[in-house]
Structures are given as C-alpha cells and as structure tokens.
C-alpha cells in the first residue's frame, strides 16, 4: 500500500486540545418518531470513535448530522470549533472541505469515471489539472486501485467501489473522516482490506474519525491492531494491547448506552451490551 502526502497545516492540528466534533444534547426525529434523543459525544483530535448499534438505531443519521447534511431538532453540534446547527449551506460547503465522508454504499457518481469521482472535489475547487492528476493517482495508489482510473463504478466490484469511495474521501487530505458502514455488505476478506485502509489512515496520518459499523469483528480489529508502515500491513498490537486512540460509542433506540474504551466495553455489565456483544 502506498501513502498519501501529509496533510497541510490546519486549525485542528494547530490546537490539538480543541475537540473536532462535539454533540451537546442533540435530538432529531422524523414524522413524529424520535430517531436520536439527547445525544452528547466528543471526538478529540486524532481519535477514532467507533459507533456501534443495531440496524435502525440512528447511526447513519448521527454521521449525517456531524457533516451538516441534516439539522438537529434541538441541541448543538460543533465541528472544528464552529457551531453548525444554523450555519448557512454556503458556509457548510467550506467547512466540508475539511471533512471526508464514505457513504454506506459508496455513493459514487455512476455517470463519472473513477478518476472523475475521485477528482470531483479538486475539480470543483479549480485545482490545476496536473495537480488533480497527481493527487488522484496518489489517492488511488493509497487504496491500490490505480489501474481503474478510466473505469465506471458499475464496472467495479462492491469492495473496489468502497475503496474508490475512500480514495474520494481522502483525496483532499481531510482533518476528519466519517465512515458510514464502510464494510457493510462485503465479504470478510474485502472487509479486512477496507478496515486496513481505515487503520492506515488512523495510524499513518492520525486523522480523526467517526466510524459507523454493525460488524463487531471490524470494530475489534481496529481496536486491537495497528498499521505497520515497514511491513505495509496491519499487525496485532503486542501483548494483547489496545489502541488508546480508538474507543467506542454504542447506540440503542436513539440513545447512547455506552461511551468509553474498548476495555470498558468488553467488561461492561450492562445486559444490552452483553447480549449485543455475545
């Protein structure tokens, strides 16, 4: 696996103490049904927060709230120190320049080639053509899909599409990555490849991230492994260690029922968590 150019200096890196994402008593509902209720959470700089929960518990909605794609009914959401609840869409577009998002099914533009999908944001920012080509190639090399430049998403497998989606999300070297079930619907081998890419982004670039998944295996792989740059492969943390920057949130029926470390999660006495993890 190749590596991406280091991100340029950003506000988040200048002030590491400032949390990247803060949810403060956030609630949202649709058509009379409460989807998220009184959610409070924090994503600190360099943290990887894994959001677990059964299907329909509001995980994807939470991710979309963090990116300003949805607005909460109550509570406040702060991203990079800016409150985004009532932020005009034009300003949100600028803020999203620092956020990369991988959607559940990839959400690639099916009328564009892989190259144009990955280059989309750069082309919108009027980046010079040579620079676009260089960065797209770099991003695709990161996900090991350089050979697919001129293919359309429909010509790729599910796993390849998800890898292209990751390349599209990291092409502008974001300070925050939001992964919405990046391994959903994939076979175990492909899932491991995707998780390895997430881990690489975490360990090599120290990008803060919020990852939604309902696959416990993927979540615990992230917590118990680290990316070895020398071997260019993920390896288990020695002596059964855990990644200190990776911790968990568990959603159930629109509420956060757990917020803490991997160790606390696996040793929790909560009946729901015990049943969920078993």
């Amino acid at each position, binding site marked *: 696996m190749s590596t991406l150019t280091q991100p340029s200096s950003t506000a988040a890196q200048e002030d590491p103490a400032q949390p990247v994402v803060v949810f403060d008593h956030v609630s949202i509902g649709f058509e009379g049904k409460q989807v998220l209720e009184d959610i409070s959470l924090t994503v600190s700089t360099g943290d990887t927060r894994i959001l677990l929960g059964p299907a329909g518990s509001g995980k994807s909605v939470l991710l979309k709230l963090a990116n300003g*794609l949805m607005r909460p009914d109550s509570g406040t959401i702060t991203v990079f120190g800016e409150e985004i609840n009532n932020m005009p869409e034009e300003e949100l577009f600028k803020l999203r320049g620092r*956020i990369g*998002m991988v959607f559940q099914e990839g*959400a690639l*533009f099916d009328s564009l080639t892989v190259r144009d999908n990955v280059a989309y944001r750069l082309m919108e920012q009027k980046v010079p053509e040579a620079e676009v080509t260089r960065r797209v190639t770099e991003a695709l090399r990161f996900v090991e899909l350089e050979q697919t430049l001129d293919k359309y998403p429909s010509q790729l497998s599910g796993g390849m599409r998800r890898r292209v989606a990751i390349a599209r999300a990291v092409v502008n070297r974001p300070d925050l990555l939001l992964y919405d079930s990046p391994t959903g619907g994939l076979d175990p081998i492909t899932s491991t490849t995707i998780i390895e890419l997430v881990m690489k982004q975490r360990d090599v670039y120290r990008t803060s991230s919020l990852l939604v998944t309902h696959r416990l295996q993927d979540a615990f792989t992230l917590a118990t492994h680290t990316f070895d740059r020398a071997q260019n492969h993920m390896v288990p943390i020695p002596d059964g260690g855990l990644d200190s920057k990776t911790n968990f949130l568990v959603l159930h029926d629109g509420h956060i029922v757990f917020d803490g470390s991997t160790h606390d999660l696996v040793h929790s006495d909560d009946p729901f968590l015990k049943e969920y993890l078993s």
Partner: protein
Amino acid sequence: MPIDTIEGVAKKLVLPVQNYALLAGRAIGNIFQRPHYFADLIVQADSIGIGSLPIVILTGFFTGGVLALQSASSLAQFGATAITGELVSLSMIKELGPVLTSLMVSGRNASGMASELGSMMVTEQIDAMRALGTDPLKKLVTPRLFATVIMLFFLTIISDTVGTMGGAFVSVFMLGQDGSQYFHTAYQVLRFPDILQGLVKPVVFGFIIASIGCFYGMNTRGGTQGVGRSTTQAVVVSSVLIIFVDFVISRFMIGVFGR
C-alpha cells in the same frame, strides 16, 4: 382532536408547495451566484433539445396534417376551405405547437429528470455531492431549468413550422388545395399578439417541466419504488399544470390583446 387533524392535513398540503417554491426560487436565484455550470447547461440543452427533436417534429407534422384534414372537412360545409391555412397556422402557433411540444417534452424529460435525480437521491449521490462541497441545486437543477426553458422555446418554433408544413402537405397533396393560397392565408392571419402568445407559453411551460421534474426527483424517498412514484408524479403534475396554465395564459392574453 379534529383541529389537530385539520392542521396536520393542511401542513401536508402546504409543505410541498412551500418546498417547490423554495426550490424553484433558489434555482432561478443561482444564475446570480457563482459557480456557474455552463458545461452542464450545454449537456442538458443537448439532451433536452436535440434529443427531443425527432418526437417534436413528428408530433408537429402530424398535428398540422390532421388539423388541415379536420378543418377542411368542416369548412367545406360553408365553402370556406380557402382559409384552411389560416386555421392551421393560428391553431398551431397559439395553442397546439406550445402545448403539444410541452407535453411531449414533459413526457420525455420531466420523467427523465425525476428518475435521474431520484436515483441519485436514493443512492445518496446527492448527499455525497453536498458532502463534497457542491450545491446540488446549482449543479443539477439550475442547468436543467434553463436548458429546458431555452430549448423548449426553440422546439416550439420548430413544431409550429413543421406543423404548418404538415398542414400544407395535406392541403396540397391530399385535398388538392392551392399551396400559395394556403401559405398566404396562414401568414396573413397572424398578428403580433398571436406570435407573442405562442412564444410566451413555451417559456412558462419549460419552467414547469424542469422545476416539477427536479422537485419530484430531489424529494424522492423509498428506494426504486420511490423513483418510479416520483417519475409518474412528475409527468402527471407537469402535464396537468401545463394545460391549466395554458388556459390562464390564453385568457390573460385574450383579455389584454383581444385575441
């Protein structure tokens, strides 16, 4: 709780109208805001304009032809077949050209817009676009809106021309009328208000087709079934609106210009 129910029903009825007005207003307002997507405008103009040309030509020609057939048989009872061209020309330019062209384009493009944008909605491509810093209204809706308005204007002129030619073909080769008389009456009867009416309508109808198609597309929910529902609704609503607004414009023009 009857009052709550009435309030709820009223909100359900008014909310889509409000959302439609907001979408249409923002789509128009976007021409004054950067960035502009000229390349998308050209692509849409090609798809809507050039793509619709065959059906518009066929529809226009046969409509003009059947108009000549029907009016000639009726006029024959009064010995007035000489004004067949007049009837065909007035009917085509004031009514049938704009309305039939719009209905054809609505069937082809309002459905296309609703299904394309609807598919993008349900596969989260619209959300992805927003997440990548692009306003979907600027990128997707505004180019479609202006491309439809511009192209429908020219398609209607083509339809009017071809329809008049179709009427001439039937009058001369099937009914044995004099060609120069046909074209002379067809031309002489036209006045400025007739032309104005015939050219204002496609502008308004083009706006209806694109805004309704995009509105239903951008509000698609519920997977592939939702895409199908949006497509059907877009065609039905835009077609009904076209016919209704045609009546309103005609009444207004007659009120102002007396014809």
